[in-house]
């Protein structure tokens, strides 16, 4: 099958980008990323620079890959990353417009690659249980209801790819942040730090330049792990309660770093 690719090319953040159009002979069984591999092999052979795109595990779990296909983060198939999206979901001769995630908090590095370190800083601002190695009680010491473990797991499945931010008209990171707060917040292990965690993570999220959430729901619609929208309600509730309970605490933020030197 023939596929037309209209791809965003930009050498670096400081240079202007533009779309370039290519045509690829694709096989319906290959993945979207394998289709880009074929394009790149051809480009290199013609002496051109290949399209830079992020990828690693290619089985939908590492969260490295992701770009917009015809305006939809990770493309048309629900709950699927671009590495697992096979070309049989497109029509022969179809044109695919491929763009990087666009958000102020995700500055572009090259072509389809963006800087998502803001996500790491959100986790560093409290997305953990403060337990040092060696100080854990027996694994069965605290029973956890199956329902709670399942709810926690539903949220913990987040792969941190950034599709939620890219899909949101406000470039909000509420689904990502709420997912971590829900993962830890519904477990007894996460309870002691629940409110301070909410306060710190939301403050960091705002500091990074992500927009506010207006409950549109596009984030959960494109999420490759189908993280439920309810995690945002969880975040808002913990943030509100936390703002009162922890009102005497100073909330520190990590400085957003965007350069690579």
């Amino acid at each position, binding site marked *: 099958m023939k596929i037309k690719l209209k791809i965003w090319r930009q050498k670096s953040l400081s240079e202007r980008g533009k779309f370039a159009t290519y045509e690829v002979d694709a096989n319906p069984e290959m993945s979207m990323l394998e289709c880009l591999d074929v394009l790149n092999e051809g480009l290199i052979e013609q002496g051109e620079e290949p399209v830079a795109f992020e990828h690693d595990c290619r089985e939908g779990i590492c969260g490295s890959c992701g770009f917009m296909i015809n305006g939809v983060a990770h493309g048309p198939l629900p709950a699927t990353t671009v590495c697992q999206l096979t070309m049989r979901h497109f029509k022969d001769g179809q044109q695919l417009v491929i763009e990087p995630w666009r958000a102020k908090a995700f500055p572009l590095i090259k072509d389809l690659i963006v800087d*998502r370190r803001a996500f790491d800083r959100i986790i560093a*601002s409290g997305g953990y249980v403060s337990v040092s190695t060696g100080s854990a009680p027996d694994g069965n010491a605290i029973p956890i209801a199956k329902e709670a473990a399942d709810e926690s797991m539903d949220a913990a499945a987040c792969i941190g790819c950034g599709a939620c931010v890219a899909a949101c008209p406000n470039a909000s990171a509420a689904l990502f942040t709420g997912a971590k707060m829900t993962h830890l917040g519904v477990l007894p292990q996460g309870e002691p730090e629940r409110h301070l965690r909410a306060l710190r993570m939301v403050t960091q999220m705002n500091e990074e330049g992500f927009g506010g959430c207006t409950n549109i729901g596009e984030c959960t619609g494109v999420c490759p792990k189908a993280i439920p929208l309810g995690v945002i309600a969880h975040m808002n509730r913990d943030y509100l309660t936390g703002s009162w309970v922890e009102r005497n605490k100073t909330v520190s933020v990590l400085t957003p770093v965007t350069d690579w030197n």
Partner: protein
Amino acid sequence: MELNSHIPEGPIEGKWDKARFDLKLVNPANKRKFSVIVVGSGLAGASAAASLGELGYQVGCFCFQDSPRRAHSIAAQGGINAAKNYQNDGDSVYRLFYDTVKGGDFRAREANVYRLAQISVHIIDQCVAQGVPFAREYGGTLSNRSFGGAQVSRTFYARGQTGQQLLLGAYQALERQIDAGAVTMFPRSEMLDLIVVDGVARGIITRNLVTGKIEAHIAHAVILGTGGYGNVYYLSTNAKGSNVTAIWRAHKRGALFANPCFTQIHPTCIPVSGDYQSKLTLMSESLRNDGRIWVPRKAGDKRPPSEIPEAERDYYLERRYPSFGNLVPRDVASRNAKAVCDEGRGVGETGLGVYLDFSDSIKRLGKHVIEERYGNLFEMYERITSEDPYKVPMRIYPAIHYTMGGLWVDYNLQSNIPGLFVIGEANFSDHGANRLGASALMQGLSDGYFVVPYTVGNYLATAKLGPVAPSNADVANALTSAQQGVQRLLSIKGKRTVDSFHRALGKIVWDDCGMSRSAEGLTAAISKIRQLRDEFWTNLNVPGSGEDLNQSLEKAGRVADFFELAELMCIDARERNESCGGHFREEYQTPEGEAQRDDEHYSYVAAWGYKGYGNFPELSKEPLEFEYVHPSQRSYK
């Protein structure tokens, strides 16, 4: 070279206690004066960096990905073993130890494996405390399943995403230390060389993958947790970025490489569909708990599976191994799949596949039970193949999944270069010639959380380490050689792409140093590898420059190292005149076609020393002694 494994004296159950008492401690106030570099941020690297940060050392952690959370540990599906005996089914530390030594076909160190089994129970506690959402029973206790050839249920799991959840636990512990200022993270940084000053490891050279800048980082000790080298085969279940570069460059600086030919083939992967294929996708081994593996009895039977009557199906694992059936260890399952395909009984378009059939389990347990157990895996299979495994049997075929070989380390996980520690899949130590399911996660976390923090402390407390000036000649040499290496790749300006070389190399290694090997094939493979390598260095085409993000350049450096590694693997495989675990030499098999070990001559670790580019490496042997588990022919009949 004389290899001292530094195994503590005394009975096996007391060795680790004795070691921990004998290991010297660093005064709490002095810890912040020591800096430690951790390369890799997977289960081993992230857990080590976090734990060392908690103890008070200054830690720098490096990964080539954009975030430490991407490390390939994240893709492990099935679970993690621990000798908790929560199921009251007769498990114990000793049984886990016994199973692992036997499963490794008696090519692992007993003392290391025993320690791993002891520590396994603490790992589960630690992960639960971090908030890892393991599967639970309705009463709130942890759930277990039996996995990968074990007859007890000792595997803890979080749906089909256990690796992801354990890694996120370690990643969060790491981020907590970054927040506390104890760890500095260097993402998008690739290690290009090890800095050795006066015979001890004192730092690394890295390339910043965004700016291209090549820099030296100095520390008091270096820990490599950089994973395995399965991508030498090009097609494997490893992530595309997984590579051998960090440990290979350390090897070229003098670290011994142990048992490079011990590679693991995983029996349940989705078969290859075409030339464009970039990687293979694993289907969790847990599927073998409820799926039955079969092929048609007759060769060349191309009927769809639903039209092949029961009497014309061969459930070959159940037939050959009645007591373990479909749950035989990975090496046995893989080899049998290859054997039936070689007989022309393979299924699917390519004939390289066998059926994994759930219809009996669905009849017995109901579709909802199978859906609850494997729903996400079935979905993944359907997404990739567009076949519904609830209706049509899955097609599976073996693929490279894990490498048991790696840098040689002693009981303290220190290589033969003082100050260089190697953890997780990157070392060789615990799995012998075959790794049992659900034990890679266990080893990574054991090394990182509970072993290396003690043993690095002992090293720092006893070594006399002066400051290293940036102008030091060894540092300057390492910097220059890394810069020249990059320039050399860019200056070839040939015609052929890196991927095309990598694909061709992978095919040679898979054909001759994969599921079955022979002296003749290995010799031929070595000359084919050398020929292709010569072409690589004269006809490689790397576009772009070294001053910005250049993915072709990154790949080229890694493939150059795979070429050298591939040759060493073949040399090691040819030298080991026996079959054991994943290393199957056609010349050495029992009349029934099982692996035939030669304990009299090959009960040792083969540790290879680098002797210069293209020169034959030097072999040192560490004899293996079995005081507790008496070597026997593995039988799963």
